[in-house]
């Protein structure tokens, strides 16, 4: 373009400070400088203040003996462990709640969201009642409700509800047998993985088969049969023995087996039901956003109502659902910190509670905790954004 400009009058010269591009750069540089200055000033202020308050600082406490116990841990831990191990225990407990919470909240949310749009008056009323009640009560109150209501309803240890002589429910939690597998069990695992691979291939074939012939292959029931029978037969042939470590009443509580403490149950149930109600609204909004014409078009193709929802409506609704649902996931991750109030040893309880108090390193501990929540939230939202790009409408 520039070459051919000879006929045109040259653009009037402006002072460089009136050039929008240069101006933009200058403003950006100024903002950047201001941000850096602010960060430096905060860091300096912190150091000076901590010094003046005669506080010891630094991250060396991570390698000191923690000296306190935690009753629910996914990795080995004792009072002789280090603070970094306590930190890890707390973080893993937070992750466990976050992952389970996201899973159950999504499940509850989709069921309730679709149910609210149901033509069946009773189903939609129940869904509406659930969503409107739960959404309007603070999460912490709900946690207290679940925790103390569940505790109150459960019998003391000696009067536990016992099912099949092996499952015990009492106010110390749910005790179930722990399966112990012998040395042949890996054959069963391999068989299961092979069956899984076979099912995967079968799924591809059944779709191709449907597209080619228009005939529907009963995929779901076949897949289930394969997944059950192939490992089952291998189990028999290999002669794998499974024994159970059954919870036994001894002393104060049941020993052996797996114990799910009420704190854990309360936080997972509470947070799933709470977040589920918000996801339900998101799902409803997503479905309503799909034009009714899409339903009619699907009907005119002769699709069954379940296929209509699965193949036509939900995929389009997902584009609307994903972004707000990401927010709900982030809220769930952050709300898991409320578990500290009901005695579940997650990051905030173990690290910001006990560790901070025993070491007095408030700034360091709070900083690390914020970093962990930031990383968690950032991972969740990156994952969801990636998924969102995948399902987004591709414009050609």
């Amino acid at each position, binding site marked *: 373009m520039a070459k051919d400009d000879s006929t045109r009058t040259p653009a009037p010269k402006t002072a460089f400070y009136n050039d929008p591009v240069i101006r933009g750069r200058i403003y950006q540089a100024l903002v950047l400088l201001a941000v850096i200055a602010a960060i430096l000033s*905060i860091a300096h*202020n*912190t150091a*000076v*203040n*901590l010094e*003046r*308050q*005669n*506080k*010891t600082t630094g991250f060396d406490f991570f390698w000191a003996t923690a*000296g*306190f*116990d*935690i*009753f629910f841990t996914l990795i080995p831990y004792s*009072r*002789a462990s280090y603070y970094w191990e306590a930190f890890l225990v707390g973080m893993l407990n937070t992750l466990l709640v976050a992952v389970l919470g996201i899973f159950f909240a999504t499940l509850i949310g989709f069921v309730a969201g679709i149910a609210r749009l149901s033509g069946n008056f009773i189903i939609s009323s129940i869904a509406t009642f659930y969503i409107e009640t739960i959404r309007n009560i603070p999460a912490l109150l709900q946690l*207290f409700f679940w925790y*103390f209501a569940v*505790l*109150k309803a459960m019998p*003391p240890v000696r009067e536990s509800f016992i099912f099949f002589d092996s499952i015990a429910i009492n*106010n*110390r939690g749910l005790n179930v047998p722990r399966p112990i597998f012998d040395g042949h069990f890996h054959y069963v695992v391999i068989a299961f993985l092979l069956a899984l691979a076979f099912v995967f291939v079968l799924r591809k074939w059944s779709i191709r088969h449907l597209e080619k012939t228009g005939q529907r292959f009963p995929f779901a029931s076949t897949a289930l049969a394969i997944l059950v029978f192939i490992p089952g037969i291998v189990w028999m042939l290999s002669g794998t023995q499974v024994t159970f470590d059954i919870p036994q009443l*001894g*002393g*104060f*509580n049941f*020993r052996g087996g797996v114990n799910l*403490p*009420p*704190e854990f149950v309360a936080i997972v149930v509470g947070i799933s039901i709470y977040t589920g109600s918000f996801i339900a609204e998101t799902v409803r909004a997503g479905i309503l956003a799909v034009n009714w014409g899409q339903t009619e078009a699907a009907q005119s193709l002769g699709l069954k109502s379940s296929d209509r929802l699965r193949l036509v409506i939900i995929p389009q609704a997902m584009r609307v659902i994903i972004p707000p649902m990401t927010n709900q996931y982030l809220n769930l991750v952050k709300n898991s*910190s409320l578990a*500290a*109030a*009901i*005695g579940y*040893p997650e990051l*905030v*309880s173990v690290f*910001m*509670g*006990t560790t*901070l*108090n*025993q*070491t*007095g390193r*408030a*700034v360091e501990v*709070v900083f690390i905790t914020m970093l962990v929540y930031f990383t968690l939230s950032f991972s969740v939202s990156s994952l969801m954004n990636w998924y969102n790009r995948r399902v987004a409408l591709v414009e050609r």
Partner: protein
Amino acid sequence: MKRLILTAFAVALGAGAAHAATLDDVKKKGFVQCGVTGGVPGFSAPDASNNWSGLEVDFCKALAAAIFNDPSKVRYSPLTSTERFAALSSGQIDVLSRTTTWTMSRDTTLGISFVGTMFYDGQGFMVRKADKIASAKDLSGASICIESGTTTELNAADFFAANKLEYKPIVFVSQDETVKAFEDGRCDVYTTDSSALAAERSKFAKPDDYLILPEIISKEPLGPVVRSGDDTWFKLARWTYYVLLEAEELGVSKTNVDEMKKSENPSIKRLLGAEGDFGTPLGLDKEWAYKIIKGVGNYGEIYETHVGPKTPIGLARGLNALWKDGGLQYSPPIR
């Protein structure tokens, strides 16, 4: 927890950096901001109309009486164990008078100074009588309700490790939830300082169903705390505590303090400002001790009113008796 983050920020940003002149600040604002426990009867608890009372509260009142000649010039900040030190070092409160155990690491690394031991305590265990437990050595496998961020949590871990017993610590952020979980049967045992056990038991619907085990597994010297780096304020707090002791030792009480002003006993004359001037070096006037005693009484009176044998909490003086009665409470001479 939100408040904790905020205070951590405040520490970081230096919003309330340790001022050297806490007394001037207090005089300027017209009240003492005092960090207390949320509700342990006898130590610090608000009544229905939000009037706070208790042993720890009375220390705050004594400070206010010394400075303003009015024990009511106190504002209370109920704090959880996890919040308390951040609240103090960020300047949210002027003094922390909240069942805080004096330990070496706290004294040397947190930038705080312990004023003295208002209450000699030790950690104990409370169980249900129905469980038929006679000793803490029988607690193998027990679930134990504990408040987070306390020395209690560490002592319990030490005790069970030393005796090779298993246990499950169920740790709550606030005392209310800790006690409620114990009452609801989540735990077999509630452990904290034995004085607080007695105080909590007095709140239960059926106090007689619970038993405090004989073992005391730790030393818990509880006392008020101030920020380090302000010697004037620290000494004012320390001598306020000593005045309470000295007054009891000399037999000066809330009721007889006016008569005692006429006493010929030189120790009493010095205490009440009739001879010499011990207030000015603290930034107060020479009647400062008189005002404390007139306003809140002496240590013995405070003890008897709030936690003594005649109260529902019913704690004998024990180690908290004056030194001349066989206890540990002792004031350096005021002279």
